[in-house]
């Protein structure tokens, strides 16, 4: 099944989903289910879907992306769609799809930055580091 070939990488508390080939309807439905179950399994707080390699996004995929964002929101995770190509953006606009409720950013860098700053989703490592430094401060003070 093609849908299971799309990797879902957990980095810190963010799931990164790089989509590398054009998807058919079934693939994208399967992807939706996998992302949601991964969210449940890992307790991630953010989903970052990279579509920079997609040359075609049809109305169905557009709708599913909106759906994923809405569903993840209910599961307390924020979704960011990253790296949409100009041609894809123009097509979606011509189709009248605005991907409401989905945050879109330019590249993965910006996506991670957004998830961290706006939504307060940190890497586990970072959180750990902060705890450590807090602890160290307390020790120093005493």
């Amino acid at each position, binding site marked *: 099944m093609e849908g299971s070939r799309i990797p879902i990488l957990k980095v810190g508390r963010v799931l990164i989903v790089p989509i590398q080939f054009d998807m058919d309807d079934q693939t994208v439905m399967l992807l939706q289910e996998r992302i949601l179950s991964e969210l449940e399994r890992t307790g991630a707080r953010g989903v970052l879907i990279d579509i920079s390699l997609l040359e075609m996004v049809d109305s169905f995929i557009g709708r599913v992306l909106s759906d994923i964002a809405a569903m993840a929101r209910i599961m307390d995770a924020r979704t960011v769609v*990253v*790296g*949409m*190509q*100009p041609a*894809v*953006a*123009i097509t*979606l*606009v*011509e189709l009248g799809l*605005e*991907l409401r409720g989905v945050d*879109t*950013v*330019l*590249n993965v860098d*910006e996506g991670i930055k957004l998830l961290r700053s706006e939504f307060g989703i940190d890497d586990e490592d970072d959180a750990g580091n902060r705890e450590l430094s807090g602890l160290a401060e307390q020790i120093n003070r005493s």
Partner: protein
Amino acid sequence: MTDNSVPSSQASLRIVDLLSTRRDEILNLWIAGRLESDDFRDELITKIDLRNQSRQIVEMLARSIREAGEADFEHPAFDDLRDFLNEISRMRAVKGYTPMENATYILSLRDVVIPLLAEEFEGSSESLVREMNYFTRLLDKMGLVMVDNYIRSREEIIHQQRADMMELSTPVIKVWDKILTLPIIGTLDSRRAQMMMEALLQKIVETSSTIAILDITGVRTMDTLVANHLIKTVTAARLMGARCILTGVSPAIAQTMVQLGIDLSQITTRAQMSDGIKLALEMIGRAVVSAKALSQAANGAADAANAAAQKASALAAHGTSITESNRQREKETKSFFSPMPPNDIQQ
């Protein structure tokens, strides 16, 4: 072919002889007529050029008619002449002649040639009418070619200019790191809006900008179509991850937009380009401050730092004095309990 159904009596065409033997006379009359008329504009063409052109036309006409017999202007014998006329009319189109001036130039040859032709024929009116008919028909065709080609040249010029304008009209300027501006001037039709959108999106990718300022100061009128284009552009940019700021909305446009019921609540708007830039800078975490305020702030910070440094040095001095006294005491203790190992002594 010829519609007066006189087959190949080429040799007997008097018009050819007339055009070649009395060429200079015809030329003089023709040009004199041109110079007298209102059409002649010496800022557009010199007399010498006009004479040369006219001479070539008369010569080519004589040659072509001789070759073609009494065939129509479509005959291959007229190809050279047609090309030459095309060239002239293109030149005239570029220089700014009107189509009427263009056609009159050729047609006025008739007024010169016909009386001379009548002179040649004297009595034989039947041949005169035949040749006159033929010659007039030729000239009419030539006049049409001139006009036709004039219009085509004009259209080419217009196309060229439109293409130039298209290129010029969609400049996307990077004003700061991650900030693009797109000044829109004139009217937005679908084609231009499409080009504008593509140019903007492309530039967003190239410069990885996150903010685009669309400035519509130069847009005079706004209708639903234009507004739709704007909204589409903003939405597409948003889908790619860039936010748009709309600036330079004039009172007239603001009124029209509200009256038309265009919903711009999705778009951030600012009055002027400068406000847009300020907002954009704020959005990427920068601020524009006056140099005075900046230096004051810097001075304040420096003062604070100085104060802190003074405090620190005072503390340090205090510290050294403490350590000094400690050391002093240690020495005393050491001398007191001499067998004590020195590394056990701690402050």
